[in-house]
């Protein structure tokens, strides 16, 4: 069961889940904020809409719905 950091808080998540699911599992529903400040969360679930984008290990624009969690990942919403 990998342990990841979501906005600085360590969370243990099931093996093999995507980052998007891990963040929602951790109760975080605002993945990013839109241009006009609306909170947004995963929408299409298949890597097309980019609403799920997060900063993963320092790299922005990661499509979290298509990335599987790894031990020690640093995940941040924007």
């Amino acid at each position: 069961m990998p342990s990841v950091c979501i906005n600085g808080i360590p969370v243990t998540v099931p093996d093999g889940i995507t980052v998007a699911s891990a963040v929602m599992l951790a109760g975080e529903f605002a993945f990013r904020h839109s241009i006009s400040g609306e909170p947004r969360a995963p929408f299409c679930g298949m890597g097309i809409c980019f609403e799920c984008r997060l900063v993963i290990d320092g790299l922005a624009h990661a499509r979290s719905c298509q990335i599987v969690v790894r031990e020690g990942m640093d995940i941040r919403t924007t």
Partner: protein
Amino acid sequence: MLIIGAGPAGLAAAVRCAEGGRSVSIVDDNPDIGGQIWRGGPGIAKTRDASEWCTKLRSNNRISILNGRVISADRALQRVTVELAEGALVIAWSTLILATGARELFLPFPGWTLPGVVGVGGLQALVKSGLPIANKRVVVAGSGPLLLAVASYLSKQDAVVLTIAEQAPWPRLVRFGAMLLRFPSKLWQSIRLRVSLLHVRYRPGCWITRAEGDARLQRVHVTNGRTTWVEECDYAAVAFGLWPNAELASLLGCKLDESGVVVDSYGRTSLPDILCAGEVTGVGGLDLSLAEGEVAGFTACGDLTAADRLLQRRKRALAFARHLQHAFRSRPEVKGLSDPNTVICRCEDVTLGRLREVSSWRAAKLHTRCGMGPCQGRICGPALNVLFGWQASSVRPPLFPARIGSLLAEGAPRERQWQLYEDAMERGDSCNNDALQRRPLDRS
């Protein structure tokens, strides 16, 4: 032989090609093979069909699987640039099979951008990827048989599916049901589905008019055109059918029509070395995708006789697909749900009010930035096509937001290319989730 997309069509094509003696590389941007309908994930049991095809693929030494995304393509040089988790590869083809599948069609309504409003296949994908759904209240809405399939899946995961709102009216569904008598296996499938959902309210002729909530979804308003009621819920899964992912085909110069990429009965596009199979040629469901995938695989190997044997199956599947499209087409009301303040382009927050001031897709892009965000119009484009009849303008690379390093990949030295390829192959060798994950970042 290069195949883009490892859903049913891509898998079937890869297996038939490899059985025909060709060496095949298949590229997909998901962590596992199977596309949307056969999406894998932790503890997901596959259907027998899915297991068989995935096993055939994984056990064939001539097939290598690459986890990456095509960001650009060069028709003349016959090559694509694939962005990987780390780095990018330029891959040349002698024959290319596009099996890029379809995405969901979303018709905007007030509140559709709230966290918790998701696609229908989208919610299934999220749940299969680990989203907990047990005891969560879900409204499934929009149109098409996918609503039932997903509602059934969610129910089995212990979600509380409050209602299924199908916008197609009863008379159309009854006629569709009668037509199913001609397709016994489909009829049986539908009956099984409906029986698995007897505890859920299935409401034809109903649709969601708005979603509300404080920072996330809390309730939706549902109507049948006469009365409206409220459903308190945690998720609303809403989509109105599928739309082909034809952007790569378009970039390459393949001819498209209103259904998708134009192909003949052997899967050949308007370009000699490019074949196409599956939902991207026109939404038609699993059986058609498999048939088309096999046909494309046989055609690519030059075995037209084997392809011929599948033509009848393909024709039948196409006929069924046409009935489906007709039965579940969008009624006028669901095209008019948005108000002037409803965001249409989610990437750039462009509202309907602003879009009404322009008269074409191109003008919208220029004046409002609609379609210029990360999704490059994949979400708002189809919606505006349905709402206003706007045609998206030509596709340009990169097909998706890409790292600058990936765009420069074509200039990378060959040794670097080979190293990346070997690393990617090594990671993908056991062809499962673990192997397809990226390696730890090199922080130097």
